[in-house]
């Protein structure tokens, strides 16, 4: 009796595992490798959305500047894996820093986490709209810093951004080059996919474990009623800072991956619209519900690309010409989707159900 649902769950996980493993090959064969690249980006957005979900979904702290942590991670990776610093400061850097990815990513996560705490500390007493405005300002400050830190000392190379960023290397193989495995040529985007997938699964794992713990409960308690949470003995200051810090950490990792993947970063990738985009993923998918947030991130990451791919031929065949360019159509559909979801599914496309806990089932599992 009791083995049946367990077996089903294992079978389901195995099926998802196989599907995720063959996905890049299936997508690459059907739509071409540019779509594998889009899937790679979708994974980055899943990481970002899950990070923001800790802050907004669990702890209920509205953060409109989340993309700043993505920027911090991306620029840190860029500075430590490109010739830029050696060119700008030949006196300090005789050779270009070429940090290995296993050192840069954790460092990026740590620094982004510190920035998260830095943002969190002065805003602890703010809630709702007020917090949203301050975080929005923080996001813009980071972007403007990146835009202007090319003088007096050229640290970020200003609006031109940093290029020639080395791709992540694993086992001596750069992930942007194809690799021959057992006679099969695996393209670089596929390798990046597996790398991103591994880290995304790690992020999902961490989120699930945290949610189902003393800390996850404390976050939700703060979201539901901060005064009662304090009276229950929760140190709301520390618990909120932890949410900000951990959320930012995921953003920092995603940023590092982004920099290595693109080979180029510039401030314009980290605008307010990107923050809003990630927030939409969380809200549309289902705040505080990990599968919902993943769904929201995948949908919203694929939507613009699907439009770019489909909007032009559809309009051509309907009207004989292109009336609305795909980019404007994207924002239009975005707005409509938000309104529709807020009207008919205010808790998101896949909201969280009340988690049932059974002592008996728990004891059995232990």
């Amino acid at each position, binding site marked *: 009796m009791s083995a049946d649902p367990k077996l089903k769950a294992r079978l389901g996980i195995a099926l998802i595992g196989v599907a995720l493993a063959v996905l890049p090959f299936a997508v690459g064969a059907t739509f071409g490798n540019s779509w594998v690249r889009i899937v790679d980006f979708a994974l980055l957005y899943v990481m970002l959305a899950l990070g923001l979900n800790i802050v907004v979904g669990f702890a209920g702290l509205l953060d409109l500047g989340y993309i700043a942590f993505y920027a911090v991670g991306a620029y840190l990776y860029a500075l430590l894996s490109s010739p830029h610093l050696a060119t700008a400061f030949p006196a300090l850097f005789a050779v270009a820093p070429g940090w290995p990815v296993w050192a840069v990513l954790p460092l990026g996560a740590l620094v982004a986490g510190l920035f998260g705490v830095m943002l969190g500390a002065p805003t602890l007493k703010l809630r709702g709209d007020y917090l949203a405005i301050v975080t929005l300002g923080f996001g813009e400050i980071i972007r403007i810093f990146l835009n202007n830190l090319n003088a007096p000392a050229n640290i970020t190379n200003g609006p031109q951004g940093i290029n020639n960023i080395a791709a992540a290397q694993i086992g001596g193989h750069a992930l942007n080059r194809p690799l021959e495995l057992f006679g099969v040529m695996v393209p670089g985007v596929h390798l990046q996919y597996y790398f991103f997938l591994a880290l995304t699964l790690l992020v999902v*794992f*961490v989120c699930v*474990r*945290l949610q189902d*713990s*003393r*800390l*996850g*409960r*404390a976050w*939700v*308690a703060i*979201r*539901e*009623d901060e*005064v*009662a*949470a*304090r*009276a*229950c*003995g*929760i*140190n*709301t200051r520390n618990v909120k800072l*932890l949410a900000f810090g*951990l959320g930012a950490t995921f953003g920092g990792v995603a940023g590092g991956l982004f920099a290595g993947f693109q080979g180029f970063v510039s401030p314009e990738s980290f605008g307010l619209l990107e923050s809003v985009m990630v927030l939409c993923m969380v809200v549309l998918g289902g705040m505080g519900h990990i599968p919902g947030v993943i769904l929201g991130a995948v949908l919203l990451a694929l939507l613009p690309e699907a439009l770019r791919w489909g909007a032009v031929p559809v309009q051509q065949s309907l009207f004989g010409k292109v009336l609305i360019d795909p980019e404007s159509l994207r924002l239009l559909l975005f707005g409509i989707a938000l309104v529709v979801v807020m009207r008919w599914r205010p808790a998101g496309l896949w909201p969280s159900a*009340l*988690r*049932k*806990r*059974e*002592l008996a089932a*728990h*004891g059995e599992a*232990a």
Partner: protein
Amino acid sequence: MSAPLLEARGISKRFGGVQALRDVSLSIRAGEVYGLIGPNGAGKTSFFNVLTGLYSADQGEVRFDGQSLPLGVPHRIAGLGIARTFQNIRLFGAMSALENVMVGRHIRLHTGVLGAILRTPAARREEADTEARAHALLRYVGIDRLANQQATHLSYGDQRRLEIARALATEPRLLALDEPAAGMNATETAGLRALIEKLRGDGMTVLLIEHDVKLVMGLCDRVAVLDYGEKIAEDVPDVVRRDPRVIAAYLGREAADA
């Protein structure tokens, strides 16, 4: 007579032009049910909020079991052993009844980020123990059958019980109830009274703010009366009931003189 568990000395609190509390001193002995009554706006809830750390006091100190309470720092006061409920019930609405009580265990647990992520044997033991204790507390207040119900879906009386269970989960030595009978019908009030009697029987010290004078007089070992932020009486219910200042505060000066 046992030494006081809690001793408030000269608590004053002002909000702008309103002197909410003026030099209030009182002491609660271990194991008693202590009532705090007074007309609307007398400062009962303000005193409560000072005691449980939601407000800091302008003057005065509170000693609890020989230690000075860190007023204004609610989570530390909860850690020292004072738990409370709220006049307008404040549960974590999206959570189940069981999870609400599990949140109450927060301060007695130690699992940190790494322990939660790695789910170490210690963390797993702690989770299982937390869940078992939460169930036991729900049973204690009589709502374990509702453990997996969403807190907001519980009936009013059961929400009160759940709030008490959550407060008990912090392992308090003083349980402070802010108007627990407010809005209850006669049956629910009788049930609440039985629950408080049970708590007293198990050695819990209870501070009770209440409007229902009958409930207070029937239940409490001692009663203090606040009026305009000042304590005007403190004694056993029978004495307080006849105190002319108390009668004046409740019914007006003429009634006291009559």
